[in-house]
């Protein structure tokens, strides 16, 4: 069980208890213990989540809906209970607001293809930001090309914050949709969404929040945010790959056409056409990732037992510790806010004169897993003026020891390239 009491002055020992829950942390990489700091790409899974998958296949596996036999009833209950649990986790009023998808990317594409294609026309504007992940850019470019809508990008300041004034200046009565990330997957920047959403609403725009990094790192409450859409991925919050979530306000979901057709989303099929089921099932054509949904519920249980406020505090303390250590390290340039109050669990930096891929490779030689590259944020890279950066990102099982091994690895990088 995860440690339950990680208050803001959380000590390494307390949350350390979590490490034992993650079997992969026993692995050695090139003769060194694994120091996994690539959590913004995907997190590791606790034993309980892995067991939830095994349990599903060893005891309950069946297709969902439409069958009366015991296994199918059990599989359906696991799947639909997962929907309800996810709804509670993000403060959604009902399980009917939750569509299961493959991940954040598919969730955003669903909104682009169903909602946006139906609502946007030439003259309309979509507001994004330069810090968006490609998954929150390319779907809008595709829909913009089809509909003739235009895209405006809110600037990122040199400190790595969203330029709040520039954002406001982009909003106008033609703005139909605003799509923003909760937390930058490169800089860790947390955007002041409540405020921005209400500003967008004042102009009649609909708001999608990309929660891929935010939902795993902080309490996220859709009722408080009041966003129309929230997209996030299971695999970045201790759950398996292949399962993700689109939250949408119920009346909006009810107005949307399905994007994929097939089994499980119709009530009636005639030669000439078909009648859709109600949401959310209308949007889940075909056999879904049932085991993935069941295991996502277990991941939510795991995070809830720790407490998302505690997760947030813990990542803030690690971020502070790491920022201080990186500041001490010679020849390291850190990007982004460098302030754990508005930066959540993700740090971008470079070793001067060393290409991020070379640095990441040398870190890997001592078991430190970080990612180097553009992190699916080429617009942000251009704004930062670099082709690529190194990124260290935390999750619940990381501790100060991981940060120390990172710093040790960076000393090694400097020695190799001295």
């Amino acid at each position: 069980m995860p440690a339950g009491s990680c208050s803001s002055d959380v000590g390494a020992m307390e949350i350390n208890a979590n490490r034992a829950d993650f079997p992969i942390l026993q692995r050695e990489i090139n003769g060194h213990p694994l120091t996994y700091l690539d959590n913004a790409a995907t997190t590791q899974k606790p034993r309980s989540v892995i067991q939830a998958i095994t349990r599903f296949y060893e005891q309950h596996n069946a297709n969902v809906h439409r069958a009366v036999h015991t296994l199918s009833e059990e599989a359906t209950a696991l799947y639909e209970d997962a929907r309800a649990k996810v709804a509670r986790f993000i403060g959604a009023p009902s399980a009917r607001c939750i569509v299961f998808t493959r991940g954040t990317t598919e969730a955003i594409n669903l909104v682009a293809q169903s909602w946006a294609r139906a609502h946007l026309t030439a003259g309309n504007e979509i507001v994004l930001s330069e810090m968006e992940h490609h998954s929150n850019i390319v779907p809008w470019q595709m829909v913009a090309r089809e509909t003739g809508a235009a895209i405006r990008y809110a600037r990122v300041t040199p400190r790595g914050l969203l330029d709040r004034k520039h954002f406001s200046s982009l909003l106008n009565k033609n703005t139909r949709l605003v799509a923003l990330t909760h937390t930058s997957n490169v800089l860790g920047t947390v955007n002041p969404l409540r405020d921005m959403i209400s500003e967008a609403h004042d102009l009649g725009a609909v708001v999608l929040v990309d929660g891929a990094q935010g939902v795993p790192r902080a309490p996220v409450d859709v009722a408080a945010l009041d966003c129309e859409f929230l997209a996030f991925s299971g695999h970045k919050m201790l759950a398996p790959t292949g399962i993700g979530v689109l939250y949408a306000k119920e009346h909006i979901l009810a107005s949307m056409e399905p994007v994929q057709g097939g089994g499980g989303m119709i009530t009636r099929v005639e030669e000439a056409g078909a009648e859709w089921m109600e949401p959310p099932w209308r949007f889940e054509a075909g056999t879904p990732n049932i085991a993935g949904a069941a295991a996502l519920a277990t991941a939510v249980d795991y995070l809830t037992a720790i407490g998302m406020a505690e997760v947030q505090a813990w990542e803030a303390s690690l971020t502070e510790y790491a920022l201080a250590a990186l500041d001490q390290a010679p020849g390291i340039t850190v990007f982004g806010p460098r302030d754990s109050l508005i930066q959540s669990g993700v740090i971008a930096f470079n070793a001067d004169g060393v290409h991020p891929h070379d640095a990441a490779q040398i870190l890997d030689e001592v078991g430190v897993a970080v990612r180097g590259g553009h992190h699916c944020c080429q617009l942000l890279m251009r704004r930062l003026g670099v082709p690529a950066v190194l990124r260290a990102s935390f999750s619940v099982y990381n501790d100060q020891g991981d940060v120390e091994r990172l710093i040790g690895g960076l000393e090694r990088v400097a020695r190799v390239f001295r």
Partner: protein
Amino acid sequence: MDEDKGGLYRAVILEHAKNPRNSGRVENPTLQARASNPLCGDELELTASLEGGILADIRFQVRGCAIVTAAASLMSQVVQGQDLEVARVLGRTFAGVMEGEASDLPADLAALEPLVEVKKHRSRIKCALLPWYALADAEGAGG
């Protein structure tokens, strides 16, 4: 793992990465190509002067990681003074080794041995091959 021997970053790679041979541009090149790996941000420009089918001079301008820089440097030494078509065949042979289709480097590519370690790292293979892709694609400059 010892820092200076073995592994990807053995001394010879680092030495070539820090002091790439034949770096820069050939003036009035008769052969030219750009190659890039947008996934890493690596970019490279090859310029050469071709005399009777022979690569009389070949130079690289590289913005990228140590592997691609060293690969361009090592390659320039191997193909300098070679027949262009022979050099392109060498490139295909090297690609075959790096992609696991052939197992051993032939004698005329022995100088590339330090790069063979890269093949253990799938995501980096393209770094070692990028200069050779540029040679394969290179076309007459200016005309």
